[in-house]
């Protein structure tokens, strides 16, 4: 089908950038926040307006300029990109609301700078989602790294500085040291960097160079937090919670796995990888990350750190989905981008709400908090159900697809990994909920003196928790989009 040439993808990317001058010049915080909402709603609206066309099987594209011979700075909206963009742009609306409650609740400094860089980071995220080729994706990936650095290091204290160093080091060394040379090599081999259904490099590489290139990409996109290049993620938890919630549960990390997914499916292609037998290798890499991170999560007392390690594991589910190279596996990976996003963001919102209301950060100090903050902990419970993968939450659907995928790919050991890690997820989430709700009066550390988190901090997690449940019953358009995307990858 001929792609539709439309400027919508470009507008979707630029909406938040355009708002930045307004944010800087806004005199009153309420005006500033209103404009952030306007940008977020605008972005979501434009992204959503592209759904009908894409669901009908078309793609939208827009070429901005030529960067090198054979490589354009080009945006293309296909099913997979649209799925990711929908998730990110919707959750930005929710996170902006949450940010208001959080930043004002803690009286944070430099809020204008915060909202500006947030807007820039979302621009870059949508840019990655809508990239038509590897170089465009790299450009937006780098812009994302740079615009999230001030957000991670927002507190500007010593801890922020050392975490910022780690963040930057892992991400830049990966992108400049591994992805850039790999990209140049791909360009020299193929003459272009456009994503192609069936794999750009299909047929032009032999086994060993392909393996090196593949590993350079997989570990180079360190935002995907595949072990051992994962250590930046727990360090990035020094950021304010809205940052951790949206960026490190949704935008930044999903950009990482999105890039890895794209490279696996549209640069190398399932055919080539299957022929060389690299599927099981990638599955193994993902499996190691899943299991090790789950075990580490068990030992963390700081709630955000536990969530960080949980995220690391969940991200590798998506990589596992791609590595399975089968229809259900890939669909499961793509769906997990959406389902995990909603579930994890709920969990992070709850963690932040607890900090705003009580100042408590460690799980051991949260005994009995459920009685005082029932809505928050209720949302936390639902979020954890989704991440564990139990019905009636959306996470069940993506994990189900992944499980089918392991059977399709004849990798029953991965099925075992999935089941084991779900058990581990339960092991590190459910006790938190249990201790929060079910404890005696004498054990409870919160004797009736705190109330729920402020409204702006409470509504978002409740909303996303409800969404997680709704997604179980109505997984469209994500399910439809993922099916379309997989058809394109495997059939095209």
């Amino acid at each position, binding site marked *: 089908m001929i792609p539709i040439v439309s400027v919508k993808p470009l507008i979707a990317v630029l909406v938040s950038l355009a708002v930045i001058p307004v944010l800087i010049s806004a005199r009153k915080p309420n005006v500033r926040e209103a404009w952030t909402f306007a940008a977020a709603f605008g972005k979501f609206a434009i992204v959503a307006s592209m759904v009908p066309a894409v669901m009908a099987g078309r793609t939208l594209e827009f070429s901005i300029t030529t*960067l090198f011979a054979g490589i354009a700075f080009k945006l293309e909206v296909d099913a997979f990109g649209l799925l990711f963009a929908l998730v990110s742009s919707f959750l930005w609306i929710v996170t902006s609301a949450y940010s208001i409650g959080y930043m004002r609740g803690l009286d944070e400094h430099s809020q204008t700078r915060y909202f500006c860089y947030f807007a820039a980071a979302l621009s870059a995220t949508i840019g990655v989602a809508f990239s038509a080729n590897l*170089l465009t994706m790299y450009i937006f990936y780098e812009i994302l790294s740079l615009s999230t650095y001030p957000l991670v*290091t927002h*507190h500007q*204290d010593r801890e922020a500085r050392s975490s910022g160093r780690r963040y930057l*080091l892992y991400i830049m060394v990966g992108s*400049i040291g591994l992805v850039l040379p790999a990209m*140049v090599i791909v360009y*020299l081999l193929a003459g272009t960097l456009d994503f192609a259904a069936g794999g750009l490099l299909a047929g032009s590489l032999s086994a060993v160079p392909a393996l090196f290139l593949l590993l350079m990409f997989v570990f180079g996109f360190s935002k995907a937090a595949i072990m051992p290049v994962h250590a930046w993620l727990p360090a990035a938890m020094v950021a304010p919670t809205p940052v951790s919630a949206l960026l490190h549960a949704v935008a930044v990390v999903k950009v990482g796995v999105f890039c890895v997914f794209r490279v696996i499916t549209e640069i190398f292609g399932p055919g080539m990888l299957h022929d060389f037998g690299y599927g099981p290798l990638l599955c193994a890499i993902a499996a190691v990350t899943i299991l090790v991170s789950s075990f580490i999560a068990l030992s963390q007392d700081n709630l955000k750190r536990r969530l960080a390690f949980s995220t690391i594991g969940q991200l590798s589910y998506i990589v596992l989905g791609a590595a399975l190279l089968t229809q259900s596996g890939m669909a499961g990976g793509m769906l997990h981008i959406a389902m995990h996003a909603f579930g994890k963001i709920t969990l992070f919102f709850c963690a932040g709400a607890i900090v705003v209301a009580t100042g408590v950060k460690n799980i051991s100090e949260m005994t009995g908090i459920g009685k005082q903050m029932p809505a928050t902990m209720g949302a936390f419970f639902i979020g954890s159900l989704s991440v564990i993968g139990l019905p009636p939450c959306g996470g069940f659907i993506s994990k189900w697809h992944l499980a089918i995928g392991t059977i399709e790919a004849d990798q029953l050991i991965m099925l075992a990994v999935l089941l084991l890690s779900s058990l581990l997820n339960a092991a590190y989430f459910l006790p938190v909920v249990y201790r929060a709700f079910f404890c005696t009066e004498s054990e409870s550390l919160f004797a009736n003196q705190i109330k729920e988190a402020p409204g702006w901090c409470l509504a978002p997690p409740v909303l996303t928790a409800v969404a997680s449940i709704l997604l179980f019953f109505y997984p469209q358009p994500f399910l439809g989009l993922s099916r379309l995307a997989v058809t394109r990858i495997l059939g095209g």
Partner: protein
Amino acid sequence: MSSQIPAFIIVVPLLAALVVNIAGWARRSLCFPTAVCALAAAWISTIIVMLRVSREGDIIYRMAGWDPPWGISWHIDHLNALILILIATVALINIVATRSTAAQEFPDRLGIFYCLYLLFVTGVMGIVITGDVFNLYVLLEIASLSGYALLGMGGSRASVSSLNYLFMGTIGASLYLFGTGYLYIATGSLNMVDIASILPTLENISLIKVSFVLCLVGLFMKMAFFPLHTWLPNAYSHAPGPSASLIAPLTTKVMLYVMIRVALTIYQPDFAFSQMALQDIVVWLAVIAIISGSILAWKQDRLKRMLAYIIVVEVGYMAGGFWLGNQTGVTGAVLHIVNDAMMTLCLFLTAGAIASRINADAFKHLQGLFRRMPFTMTAFMVAALSIIGVPPTCGFFSKWYLLSGGIEAGHYEFTAALIISSLINVLLFFRVVEISYYEPFDNHQENEQQGIQEASLDMLLPLLATAGLLIVLGFYAHSLVTWIIEPAVSSLFTGSL
């Protein structure tokens, strides 16, 4: 009249230098406007020349109408025209940006400063535009002498560093002259095109090889190519701000241009790359230059010295890229000449802006700069990203060509050195960012109430314009390569002039 425009490029700044010197005695307030008008006229002439070259092909301008090889002729092709525009742009932006600093630092010698400024610009423009090898030596020395004087205008440390630069630079220029002498002995001509047509017919190859090596070593000394770079860090870091931000972006890049011109136009690619068998040595030297320059930059604790060592690294990129010997590498080197001149200008202007507000240059004095001078630091970040090679700034695009060239030529060590130095650059620049962003560690809420103490507007606007140009050059890199650099490089490689 319009056919004389190439001459304006040299003559206008030259005459203006004289006028400015007199104005310096008579009425000091006239110095700056005269200089700016002269540079603006030169800039417009370079644009016209470029347009003419794109439309009609190479321009050959004969001085006083005498034919070569007896007369001196200037030969302008796409490559020259591009570098001419670059020089004119850098000179113009710099003179506007450093107006107040120059007035402050040289209150009684303003006329002399601008006179030397214009002489330097005349010299470098002349180097680029000429088609005669001896004329090139003369203009080389004009540029160098005014450069030494400009760099020595600071305190005593500047004089010592400049004298050291003078010694090394004179050796370099003399070696170039020596090599030219051998060329003259062999061919009897001083005109580049003429020599190029005679050289392939000669039999005494060892004479030509020696002349090439002499010229090359001389040029390496002038462009601060490792290991002949030792004059550069001192000379550039001790120099007064207005001089450093003119000379640092231009001198080494123009010498690189001369090397490209000498190797490709006079000696021809076949001889220069294949017969000389120098490629491997030079590329390895470039690799060492890149790595050692990066490590030495890391060890510095003052901003301008770090920037000076980064120039050494960049020269390594360009020289190594050229000596890869393939069209991609040469394209990357030429594009990097353009990009690096702009990046270096931006960085040195930033250093000047910071110096105008804070009287010290060591890193520990840069605390809290992001809050106090946000616009300056934004420009600094853009330039830093360009040096690191982050798209969409221009530095990424030239690095791409250099990387591809390295892989194509099989010089993987060069590619690896480029990647490693990009990573070290991340460390270098984020060290500055860390100090200026995080420290002092006391309450950030309070610090916000303190005002912004930005550099003055006449310094800030050119600085921001330069930073903007870095991004524009990035987006237009492909057009630049397709319309200007590729025609230049391919015609140099096929030998058609």
